[in-house]
């Protein structure tokens, strides 16, 4: 590949200051994201996997600039650094990026008709044009049909739909602005298993038709492998392993990835090294000086406690951050 990928995120950092209480020291911080880098090719899906609290949502919110990063850069297509944009340029760019939330019950305004919900990105934002009520109806109906709902549902309210249907509405809404990049933050983790695959297939179909790039966030490896071309594994705000889905599913190097693989249903005894573990991730307020996974790692050595292992390429396209598994 000669040209740079469509999306390149470099060294993203976000520390949330803790509110200083009367008796607590100020300047304590939640180290939510500690230098995340990733790249996404046009029309491809990058999976981001990690357990609860590992900083996946924070990363996504940083990319869309819902919250501002402490440092890092984010190049998006022709834009060299999204984080350097002022409000007017950002507004222009935002149409190209959409966000699908984890909880389809919290992401739809319960008092708004579906028609208003799915056309909102069209009615506001950069380059929005005044659409007549008829045009809005037609657009909304078209979007709903696109995601497998009935066009006659436009005047209904969110409470009339099931979780899976709501997630389809969220997808329709995201599509209305014709984005080139969608962040899907655990879009299926709150849904029934039978519904999950329908939604995942819908996302795949849409990608095939339009060439949208996805950043697909999940804590379930099986879902990520199914959808993604490339997967990054996140732990305590850092990427500990990254590589093509196929490579990662068969030749994972980092002990944490192996732990996740071993925890996949039907995969319990597949890998020898990692026993089922009940360890806790480290405190994000006082991160250990060395590898964040040290306390849970079956292969730890003294070196791991002293220094943070860098993310290094072990074979073409496959990166791992572990001193022991090179």
């Amino acid at each position, binding site marked *: 590949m000669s040209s740079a990928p469509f999306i390149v995120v470099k060294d993203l950092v976000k520390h949330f200051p803790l509110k200083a209480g009367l008796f607590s020291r100020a300047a304590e911080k939640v180290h939510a994201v500690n230098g995340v880098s990733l790249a996404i090719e046009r029309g491809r899906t990058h999976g981001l996997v990690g357990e609860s609290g590992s900083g996946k949502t924070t990363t996504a919110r940083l990319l869309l600039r819902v919250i501002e990063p402490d440092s890092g850069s984010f190049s998006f297509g022709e834009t060299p650094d999204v984080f350097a944009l002022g409000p007017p340029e950002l507004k222009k760019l935002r149409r190209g990026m959409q966000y699908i939330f984890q909880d389809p019950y*919290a992401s739809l*305004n319960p008092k708004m008709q579906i028609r208003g919900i799915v056309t909102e990105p069209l009615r*506001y934002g950069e380059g929005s044009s005044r659409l007549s009520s008829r045009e809005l109806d037609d657009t909304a109906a078209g979007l709903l049909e696109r995601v497998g709902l009935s066009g006659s549902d436009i005047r209904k309210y969110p409470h009339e739909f099931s979780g899976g249907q709501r997630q389809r509405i969220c997808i329709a809404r995201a599509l209305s602005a014709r984005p080139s990049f969608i962040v899907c933050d655990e879009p299926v983790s709150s849904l029934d298993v039978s519904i999950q695959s329908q939604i995942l297939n819908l996302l795949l179909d849409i990608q095939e038709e339009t060439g949208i790039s996805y950043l697909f966030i999940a804590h379930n490896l099986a879902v990520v492998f199914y959808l993604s071309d490339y997967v990054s594994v996140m732990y305590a705000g850092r990427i500990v392993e990254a590589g093509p889905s196929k490579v990662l599913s068969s030749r994972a190097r980092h002990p944490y990835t192996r732990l996740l693989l071993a925890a996949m249903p039907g995969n319990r005894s597949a890998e020898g090294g990692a026993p089922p573990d009940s360890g806790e991730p480290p405190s994000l307020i006082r991160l250990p000086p060395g590898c964040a996974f040290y306390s849970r790692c079956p292969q730890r050595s003294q070196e791991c406690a002293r220094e943070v292992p860098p993310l290094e390429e072990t074979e073409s396209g496959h990166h791992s951050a572990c001193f022991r598994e090179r």
Partner: protein
Amino acid sequence: MFAGTLLEIPYLKFRRNRLGVVSLAVLVVLYTGLLCEGFIAPYSPNLKFKTKSFQPPHRIHFFHEGQFIGPFAYEYVQTNPIFKEYRTDGSAIHRIRFFTEGSAYSLFFLIPARVHLFGTDTGSPVFLFGTDSLGRDIFSRIVYGAKISLTIGFVSIFLALAGGILIGGLAGYAGGVSDWIAMRGVEIIILLPTFYFFLFLRSVMPTDISPARKFFYITAILAVPSMAGGARSIRNWVLSLKNADYVTSAVLSGVPRLVILLTHIIPQIRSILILNITLSVPGAILGEAGLSFLNLGITEPSVSWGMLMSSAMDINVLINYPWMLLPAAVIILTVFSFFAFGYALKDALDPKA
């Protein structure tokens, strides 16, 4: 479709609450009466019947000398013009007729008309609630007073609502110093005793102004306490809703803040706001009554219920002409109906009740 889905259960619950339904009916009658004041009132509010001052309410009879002749009133003749004593003249009969011709007025404030709900066949006046010191019909004055007393509550509450949404919404959004300042200001207003606060605001406003401006000033004064309360609760709602996912996605779509406030946040608290309005209107009505009672509110020639009560503020009047206190009964009925309706609405909208 909307009513059939979201509001069906509250509606059914409300219908079961008898007191709520009755008070809603009373309110509907009062507000309809306000629209057709000229039709319901037999006389103009400032029409003086010179020889009829402090006349007691006419009793309505149906039988004359043992014979049924329909509703009628006997003539009351003044016997002592100094102490306003009256004697019933059993020979002069004035039959009550409906839809009689009378003085000109405009129906619904638009259509010129002369027909009144009732009057007498002889054209001699009938005073259902008696007359005041100048011989004006108290019933007619109550009907005309509704225009100010019943609208002042609503107008001031909507003023309060608009102000509350703006102040509370912006404070909740902006956070930081502006939020802190706004909320401390609001708390001071809430802590002050409401009526003294009204008096204070009234005292700093100009006195010799046109009735319309006076109405506006008083409405604005009455709006301040509810505006403070509204601003505080709306601000708290904004704080709890501004991180909702649908608000975040609206922000990402470039929806302006005020639009987010009006389309994503206010609709979630619509029923709470409606409830607050219903329960605040009686406070504003009483506030107007209180100010006017102390001659600080509505003044002649306008008519309001509080002002009507101020003329009963004399122990002689109260003892000798107790019907002068009838406007108080109307105020109590209205306030009671608003509270009863408000609480019925509250029960109906509460999913747990």
